[in-house]
């Protein structure tokens, strides 16, 4: 099928940059290194693939595993009618990755959400602040070591 071909072509194109590919449950996935993220997504955005839409961007905390974090990007191509998932492993010691905010505008908020919930910092992001939580919130709530019922200290009213 066409889907498999896309993965094969990409493997051919970026032979040394792609760590692994898979199609579990029919979702085509690429695992790449964070250094080559910008290059790969910019290539994918151009013709003939035209993954012009950043559908979703999130992070998964695999606590106890090295590398601990994993960024998950979902792209969508309107012309090929195909969704592609790109995963980038991130180590806890150096928790930063290139921002996509200059290429996709919704990445601005999506990356702020990931920063808010997981503490991943995005280099080149124009406005790196928390999105849902308030300034002064301690810790990163969606990390696995953040307890479900943890309470936060009171903060002073904003002036």
């Amino acid at each position, binding site marked *: 099928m066409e889907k498999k071909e896309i993965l094969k072509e990409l493997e051919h194109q970026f032979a040394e940059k792609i760590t692994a590919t898979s199609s579990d*449950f*029919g979702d085509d996935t690429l695992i790449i290194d964070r250094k080559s993220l910008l290059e790969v997504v910019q290539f994918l955005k151009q013709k003939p693939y035209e993954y012009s839409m950043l559908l979703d961007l999130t992070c998964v905390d695999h606590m106890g595993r090295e590398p601990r974090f994993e960024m998950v990007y*979902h792209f969508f191509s*309107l012309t090929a009618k195909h969704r592609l998932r790109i995963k980038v492993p991130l180590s806890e010691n150096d928790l930063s990755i290139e921002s996509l905010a200059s290429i996709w505008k919704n990445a601005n908020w999506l990356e702020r959400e990931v920063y808010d*919930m997981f503490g991943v910092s995005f280099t080149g992001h124009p406005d790196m602040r928390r999105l*849902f939580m308030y300034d002064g919130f301690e810790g990163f709530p969606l990390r696995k070591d953040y307890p479900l019922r943890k309470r936060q200290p009171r903060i002073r009213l904003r002036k």
Partner: protein
Amino acid sequence: MTTRIQKEAKKDSFLINMGPSHPAMHGTIRIMLELDGERVLNSEVEVGYLHRGFEKTCEHKTYFNLLPYTDRMNYVSPLINNLGYVMTMEKMLGIEAPEKAQYIRVIMSELSRISDHLTCLAAMAMECGAFTVFLYKIKAREFIWDVIEETTGARMTTSYIRIGGVRADLHPNYEEVLNKAIVETRKVLKDVHGLLDKNKIFLNRTRDVAVVAPEVAVNYGWTGPCLRSTGVYFDVRKTFPYSVYDQLDFEIPLGERGDNFDRYMVRMKEMEQSLRIIEQAMKKIPKSTAKTMAKGVQPAEAIKASREKRVEKNIILSPNLEGSEKDKYQDILAKSKKYIVPPKEETYTSIEGLINHFQFFMRDHGIRPPKGEVYFAVEGGNGELGYYIVSDGTEKPYRLHVRAPCFHVMAALEEMIQGHYVADVIPTFGSINMIGGEMDR
């Protein structure tokens, strides 16, 4: 703590705060505006007032128990949220609902879509001063919710669509109520077209206001009616047909300019298409193999009798609230002992049924999907509603992330209102249908 706009604002411009509790900022959102007279120079949108930690909560619930939480995301169309989650799980588990359940799902999700669009446009029109339109639309929504209530037993937090099928069969009386709702909604849509389409006040606030180009909309990750209003053809129901949408005939209305008026018009036309889908689905839905109301013994008598010997007769249960009758299971739920709650008749009257019940609900038992991750999306009221679930093989999701469609649309609000009047902010915000529960999760 100063906000970004306070730092960036020019010295002689006027800063004003809209929300989070402002009558037009429905869904608790704060917009800080930097004004020059009445023109918006710059703005900053602050969200998160309705953040309830949906994703974190789900990580601590079993796959079955977290279903009611999905109702509370887009609370105007909860059935589509249920459907999105359930179909993601079905993709992971490799089960499929029977045909009748698929048609019920389509009918229910289209009803929810109509109620979603009605609410959005009602609020948008009301904020422009058209209170009549608001009342008409809310009236139509009541008829839609009557249909939903009759079958699911709830108006908003339904939890009706279950893994493997639906909770209960359609109410025996549903056709009558549904036909009434369709007639009433058509009437309201006609009235609203007459009231708004050529209304000068409405047009001034919507025509050529907050125009979004197709490339910008795609770049922002817009989906759903907002994307289609810019003229881009993308609808999950057509591009990745799920359930029985590929067997139904409907059109995808597109806009031309991508302004507020197009977003209004696309939603209005989409409701007409949804009504068409419902009418077709009503004709095509397979008849129940079981008798509509099975004759049988009362539950109390059955439990009493079961102490002496196995009850062979049918047991009467309310089809809506107490769980469907066993006879109907084959129509509305997949054949799978592992993933389906066993029928109540068996649970209460036989030892195997009771064991099945405990195996489903006991700690460390229940639904255990294989290891892996899966993404699945349905067309929600606002666009592609996607679920990304990571499973580690236990009975709880390791990670559950929701792609909320209005999140991406809201991200563009700052750019949309730039250079417009303060009065344009409100219909622009209304036209994108932000739902706090879905956006902040």
